[in-house]
């Protein structure tokens, strides 16, 4: 199966469609015995029809909690404590749960990382897809069955009539992830959230799944929120990219700008520390010293300051805010703050 060249067509053009889903000032904390863990702190995101927003960051940076918050799937002791999730003029963060149930899996759906744990092992794949459709649409009997077969075929499952009756354990990891994607797109969602959709898969299978997600995005005009730690996947898939660090977005730009000229020292460090197929093998790799801060004891100033190679006095005390700089991108760093720093690069 050669990569479909049309899979990357018109949706990628840089025209800005109207926002479909907007996250504004989202704050989610976990109230543990040891104190409040600010997993997501004042996050803004905008998803547009037919486009892919990449959310990238390392483990524990809050990218998954962001997606769970959008879906209102955060469990106690976690709680959304502020902000809005605006979808079609409605704030999903405050609608009653029955309303949310209609949205979830219907107009907004989600793919999780591990295809084995997001499928029920004792139910057939076909039954699980049918369950989603029944929840949101008035279909039953032969019509429902036909719809499931159609969805299975659209995600590239060979012999969908047979696979309808297969249990998850009978399928390979790549096939299982296709089933999970089939469940997610069964009701033609407007927004698809994919949280590390290919992390558990091998590279040749990852390439298949990414091609499938691209094709589905194009065909259905969905907005895709792609959450991953893999900068390569971001570079292949995203139109815009938000970089998260310790619960905050530190840089936001379109994918070309971000990879060509990253500005936040964390983004720069992340891109430099990645071995690529062209890295000089004799040179040591760039490494970001230290580790991600404990979210219970965050530094009082910039959260990246303890690991930053260009830290200044102000960074220790004053948290920087995400602001637009000359080329239209957003960055949260005192280096680009005209008042704080007289020595702008």
């Amino acid at each position, binding site marked *: 199966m050669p990569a479909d060249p049309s899979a990357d067509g018109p949706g990628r053009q840089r025209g800005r469609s109207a926002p479909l889903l907007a996250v504004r000032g989202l704050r989610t904390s976990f109230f543990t015995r040891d104190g409040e863990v600010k997993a997501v702190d004042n996050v803004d995101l905008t998803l547009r029809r037919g486009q892919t927003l990449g959310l990238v960051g390392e483990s524990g940076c809050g990218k998954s909690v962001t997606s769970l918050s959008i879906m209102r799937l955060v469990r106690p002791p976690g709680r959304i404590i502020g902000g809005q999730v605006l979808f079609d003029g409605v704030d999903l963060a405050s609608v009653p749960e029955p309303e949310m149930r209609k949205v979830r899996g219907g107009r907004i759906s989600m793919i999780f990382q591990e295809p084995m744990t997001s499928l029920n092992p004792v139910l057939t794949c076909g039954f699980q897809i049918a369950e989603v459709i029944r929840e949101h649409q008035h279909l039953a009997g032969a019509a429902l069955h036909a719809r499931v077969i159609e969805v299975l075929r659209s995600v590239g499952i060979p012999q969908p009539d047979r696979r309808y009756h297969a249990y998850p354990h009978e399928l*390979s990891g790549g096939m299982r992830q296709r089933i999970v994607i089939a469940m997610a797109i069964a009701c033609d969602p407007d927004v698809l959230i994919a949280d590390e959709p290919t992390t558990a898969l091998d590279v040749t299978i990852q390439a298949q799944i990414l091609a499938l997600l691209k094709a589905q995005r194009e065909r259905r005009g969905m907005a895709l929120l792609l959450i991953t730690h893999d900068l*390569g996947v971001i*570079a292949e898939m995203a139109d815009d990219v938000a970089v998260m660090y310790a619960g905050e977005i530190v840089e936001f730009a379109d994918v070309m700008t971000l*990879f060509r000229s990253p500005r936040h020292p964390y983004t720069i460090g992340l891109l430099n520390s990645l071995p690529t197929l062209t890295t000089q093998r004799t040179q040591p790799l760039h490494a970001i010293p230290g580790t991600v801060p404990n979210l219970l004891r965050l530094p009082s100033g910039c959260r990246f300051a303890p690991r930053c190679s260009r830290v200044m006095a102000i960074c220790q005390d004053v948290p920087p805010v995400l602001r637009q700089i000359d080329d239209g991108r957003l960055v949260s760093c005192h280096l680009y703050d005209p008042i704080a720093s007289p020595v702008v690069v």
Partner: protein
Amino acid sequence: MTGESGHPGQPILAVRHLVMHFPVHGGILRRTIGQVHAVDDVSFEIYPGQTLGLVGESGCGKTTLGRTILQVIRPTSGEILFDGRDLAAVAGAEQKAFRRSAQMIFQDPFSSLDPRATVGEIIGEGLRIHRVGSRAERAERVREIMSLVGLRPYYAQRYPHEFSGGQRQRIGIARALVLHPKLVVCDEPVSALDVSIQSQILNLLKDLQRQLALTYLFIAHNLAVVRYISDRVGVMYLGKLVEVAPTEELFANALHPYTQALLSAIPVADPAQRDSRRQIVLAGDVPSPINPPAGCRFHTRCPFAIDICRVVEPPLKQYGNDHVAACHVVEAAQGLS
């Protein structure tokens, strides 16, 4: 088999026609109903002070190969020569000596450390088992190796759960190196780590190799990581070694269709390339190693397969200096060199 030219001296490790099959039991009598062909007729060498990278997708047998080399499991057949000695023949004190000189670093820094032992006990366990020195000397050696891998020696009193993933991987490295091994099998040592930590550990492994003259067998699925750390790279598919070449040569001039597909499937962290890059997306899944396809095991997914591929298993053939590949199509195209 492999050209010996350009290599420093004798190989420290030579693997000859190694086979590792695991029986599959079934039925009420739990009879053997099949074999998992985890490693099938694999041969290669590693030279002292060098790194051989081993890549392949899950289930291709790369971890089994590493475990077989370390004598954790006994191979079904084939030879493993360490410093010229066949490991199947060694026993007693000599086997114990081998176990000291070949060590392993594991993938998961969370499950590979005993949560109830202190860091000092974990690192020093090998010294205790092999009765190296007095108690004080062992403690001194543990402190020495800890500072070498970038851990503060006073951490010896702490427990693994107090450390981050990167620090734990340093503990795993210290444990592997405490007995002055010659060969270290690194099984996915950075794949559980975040990018910014991964580069710290890769730099550390490279530094240690230079300082201690270590030889690495570096098993990983991330080709960019393998390229960075390896002198030579071997590619495995379904229990078979399908291509081996010096690193630069493999990445510039991959011959086997599977290697080419693997290289093209890696997402490149450069959005400017995504439309221009020719990507080979392989159809289908890796077949089961219980009943591997006849002929070339890759023929079911190979875009270039010809009739002979379905019937005859291709042997590894030499193409240029130190570059071997097992493929009928390559053989037909290149003529026999």
